[in-house]
């Protein structure tokens, strides 16, 4: 994986709104407040991406915001590779970050755990701990899923474990 955050990622994440409500899914009313902030950050992030023509994911929550699903894509050598992703909000969120899963890629790369959870430990978890509770789902996607796709998709294409549908 990359030695450090690349400047573009750093720049982008600084523009995503920080979350101030420290509450998790077990907190009933305050979770609703947190969810509002999560959605605000996500909408801002997606808008930024669309404006810079780097839109790379779509995402939907379930009714109580505890399970999220979406699609993400990465363009490698002019071909767009799209994948489904999902994650649960852990009971101890936001102290613990959500574990993003891409079930259809399970077994295709060493940088993935059972169930398709992407391997993030090197940079991501210490950064999340330092910034908790201000990081939210948008930050997890920007700092977790995006760099993972950037590192793993070219590798998987080149090693032949994923193929373009064309």
């Amino acid at each position, binding site marked *: *994986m990359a*030695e*450090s955050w690349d400047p573009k990622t750093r720049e982008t994440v600084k523009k995503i709104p920080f979350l101030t409500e420290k509450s998790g*899914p*077990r907190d009933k009313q305050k979770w609703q407040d947190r969810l509002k902030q999560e959605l605000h950050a996500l909408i801002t992030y997606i808008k930024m991406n669309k404006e810079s023509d780097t839109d790379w994911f779509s995402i939907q929550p379930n009714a109580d915001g*505890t399970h999220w699903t979406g699609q993400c894509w990465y363009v490698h050598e002019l071909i767009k590779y799209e994948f489904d992703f999902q994650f*649960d*909000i*852990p*009971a*101890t969120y936001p*102290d*613990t*970050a959500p*574990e993003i899963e891409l079930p259809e890629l399970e077994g295709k790369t*060493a940088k993935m755990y059972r169930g398709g959870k992407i391997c993030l*430990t*090197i*940079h991501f*978890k*210490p*950064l999340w*701990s*330092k910034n*908790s509770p201000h990081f939210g789902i948008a930050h997890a996607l920007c700092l977790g899923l995006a760099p993972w796709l950037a590192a793993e998709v070219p590798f998987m294409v080149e090693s032949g474990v994923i193929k373009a549908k064309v």
Partner: protein
Amino acid sequence: QEINPDVEVESYTMNITTLQGFDSFKSSLQAPDGSSRVDLVLSCVDNYEARITINQVCLELGQVWMESGVSEDAVSGHIQLLVPGTTACFQCVPPLVVASGLDERTLKREGVCAASLPTTMGIVAGLLVQAALKHMLGFGGVSMYLGYNSLKDFFPTMDIRPSAACVNPLCRELQRREEERRNSPEARAAAEAAAAAAAAAAAAAAATPLHEENEWG
């Protein structure tokens, strides 16, 4: 159970970090009145998220637990005793890398996954079970923290006090209550009585002559 038929094994296979998993885990520890039905919980998990989850459940139940771990380079490990409100909770002390501001790049080298040595793990497991026996059967001393550095054969012990600035509000509340309990008139009286009894015993021991006879004196 074949070795010891008196042992009852209940098995729950699940991810305890999800909402449902958290609730299932917590209720598996509870008696009908909501209090904990176990004397001790031993954590033998391999990731931060699960430890935070166990920490939260044990804080909510006032449950004494022990945590164990092996380092990413597989050559050191530790066990820790956590008593809600009395010792540090798992979140009182942030992981070394966050506290010291170490650049996370120094944590792992590129392309390398965590190493594991069954020997180190076996030793840490032995230390954990030993501590569990001492705690439950009341012999010897259980350190709050016992480390194992295999490269130097070094077993450091230390006390980890709770942090007044712990990020977990429940931990801070339990610390407050423990402080109150210790300062309560009953607790103070009991402590004074114990100190007086110890002093009396020491004085009695000093008063009796060491040797009844002494052919040289």
